[in-house]
């Protein structure tokens, strides 16, 4: 009974992961990455961009059932007693406002895929990542949305 349940869960997990494009998670860090704050200065929709950041900027950076997460500039991570310094909870809202971006993985229609990116490819809140992709339509200096083609998780800081 338990073996069947584990098998069913494994199949479900595989099917869920299969929805993400192959090659999305890369072992090699894409070159010439810039920080989130720098990437937000003059984003051009359609342009290729490589951004380095920390998964966070809000209490719940991943969206359940949607291939979407938020990243925050690494300079804003702070050591707080709550252990969620990646969420930007210790930062003034005006500083946080200009240092966050959204990362999405989209389907052929340009909509976020109907799967979560949480724990896919080792992505967890607080993880450092480099995202390579294009600047999504509607982005401007106040709002940066990146449509990811490659995501690399950086190793933990020692």
């Amino acid at each position, binding site marked *: 009974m338990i073996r069947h349940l584990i098998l069913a869960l494994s199949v479900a997990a595989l099917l869920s992961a299969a929805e993400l494009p192959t090659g999305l998670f890369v072992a090699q860090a894409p070159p010439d990455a810039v920080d989130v704050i720098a990437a937000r200065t003059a984003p051009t929709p359609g342009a290729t961009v490589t951004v380095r950041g920390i998964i966070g*900027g*809000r*209490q*719940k*950076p991943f*969206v*359940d*059932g*949607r291939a*979407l*997460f*938020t990243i925050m500039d690494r300079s804003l991570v702070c050591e707080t007693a709550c252990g969620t310094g990646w969420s930007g909870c210790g930062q003034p*809202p005006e500083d946080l*406002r200009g240092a*966050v*971006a*959204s990362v*999405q993985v989209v389907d052929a229609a340009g909509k*976020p895929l109907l799967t979560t990116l949480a724990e896919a490819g080792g992505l967890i809140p607080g993880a450092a990542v480099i995202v390579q992709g294009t600047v999504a339509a509607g982005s401007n200096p*106040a*709002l940066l*949305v990146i449509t990811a083609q490659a995501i690399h998780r950086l190793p933990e800081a020692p």
Partner: protein
Amino acid sequence: MRLLPLDYAVRNLLRDPGRMLQLAGGTALVVLLLLAAGSFSTGMRAAMQASGDPANVILLSAGSEGGIERSSVDPGVAGIVAASVAGLRQSAGQSAVSPEIVHMTLVGPPDGPARQAVLRGVTPMAFAVHRGTRLVVGHPPQGDEVVVGRLAHRRLGLAADDLQPGALLRLEGRTFTVSGIFAAPGTVYEGEIWADLGALMAATRRSTISTVVVACGSASPADLEAFAAMRLDLELSAIAESDYYAERARFFAPIRAMAWLTAGLIAAGALFGGLNTFHAAFATRSREAATILAIGFPRRAVAISFFCEATLVALVGSLAALFAAIAGLDGQSIDVPGGTFMLTLEAGTLTASLGLGLMLGPLGAMLPAWRCLSPPLPSALRSA
């Protein structure tokens, strides 16, 4: 086994009416407290569950930590959501998106005392988004008008007749006219006062709203969560309305626990009081009990008679408490921060409270009965 007749137990009860009243009163108090704690807990849980529509999503400001009262959202968000998210419920050709202010302030009649009340600034769309609400009488608020929930008068300490359409209410230094009464059965909204959004923004000198409540059609709450995560410039967090009120219910859990604890402590006190009273009652009858044993009745028969006596008195107390609860508790409104709910007596609470009340009698009589019947017959017959 020969048993003593039941009327022996009844006659013994009536032998000392003062003692019987004391025992029945103690049982009634315990049962009443259990019923009150149970109806409080049930009413609050039911109101929180009914207030949260699973199809609704609440958009709050990102830094508000889940509290509508602390939230501050740009009024333009409602229009942006309606234009950006596909699959929202439609009402009269428009997306069911309700921008709202939730504001606690002092409200009262112009010539009377003011009390704290929950005000909600709304547009007519609020009645489409909050599906359980409907206008019973009057029309939606326009300008300096308000509609009041059916229980709002209790929160303000007024009679229902004082809060009919046409009545005046003073709040934030302005006078508003009651334009209607709305019903929202079983929800916390029934204790609220709903004003026109623009008028309440002007009265409270606010330039932002508290929340945007969105009703999903084919869209799912995840779509609204995705919207909040994509539009970081709006600084929003999205939470399912049912989750929001479930969280509020958890916030009140310590109050419910305190109510149960108080009832439990008083029940324990009553049990010891009952022990004492039964002990006094049976101790004076140990010679009489010994005489009954001497004429041939077994000890168990006398013990059963004592338990019948204790159960009868517990039954009287429990029934008195039940009638008092039905008359005085069921349907009464209770005000808590953020809303009003009704005390609700449900089958589970009734069964548990009455069961415990009936058990109190035999439990309280067990030890005194044993002490009364355990001495050897000769010494019991010689006892005073």
